[in-house]
């Protein structure tokens, strides 16, 4: 399961997507919108994705995680506004044993954050909006034509 959605993320659906009777360990990660009340209070984050490429990059990341760790992996990311406390990214990974499940889950979320063409804008409590400076999108040199 690979999803970009404006709806609240459905962790049970991700868990169901990775369920496997041969897998004894399942790890899940939710990344949520922080208030940052001690800094400059945040009301919501607004996510934009280059959807076609984001979905194919998410599919590539899932395939890598599955191949590296012998896991089943599902990922979902929000697009549009997400309020403080809501999940913006969700990953579930199952494997034969817990080390591979944890490792696959971490790999998928770390790679997603550094590679998927998704951007976020912060809406602050004072009404101002600002784009978050990104990290460089990594991709294999020589990919494509």
């Amino acid at each position, binding site marked *: 399961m690979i999803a970009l959605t404006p709806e609240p993320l459905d962790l049970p659906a991700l868990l169901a997507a990775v369920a496997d009777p041969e897998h004894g360990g399942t790890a899940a990660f939710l*990344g949520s919108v922080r208030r940052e009340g001690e800094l400059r209070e945040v009301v919501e984050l607004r*996510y934009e*994705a*280059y959807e*076609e*490429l*984001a979905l*194919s990059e998410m599919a590539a990341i899932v395939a890598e995680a599955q191949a590296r760790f012998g896991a089943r992996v599902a990922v979902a*990311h929000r697009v549009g506004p997400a309020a403080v406390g809501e999940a*913006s*990214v969700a990953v579930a990974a199952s494997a034969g044993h817990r080390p591979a499940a944890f490792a696959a889950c971490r790999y998928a*979320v770390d790679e*997603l*954050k*550094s*590679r*998927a*063409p*998704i*951007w*976020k804008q912060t809406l602050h409590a004072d009404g101002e909006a600002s*784009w*978050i*400076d*990104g*990290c*460089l*999108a990594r*991709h*294999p*040199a*020589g*990919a*494509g*034509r």
Partner: protein
Amino acid sequence: VSLSLPPGTPVGAVWGHLPGPVRDVGLPDGARYALNHEWTLPGATLRDGDEVAVVLPVSGG
């Protein structure tokens, strides 16, 4: 944005053909290119109907 460019134009030259207000900002550091929804390099040459994306540094999650 739809652009008409000479045959064989490389992906990396597309920014220079964008409308003035965008072009004048300058190509941001760390931008990457995608061609028809796949990552590519700036030297890739364009064919009729290609879709190019200039992908700025990402901040998902």
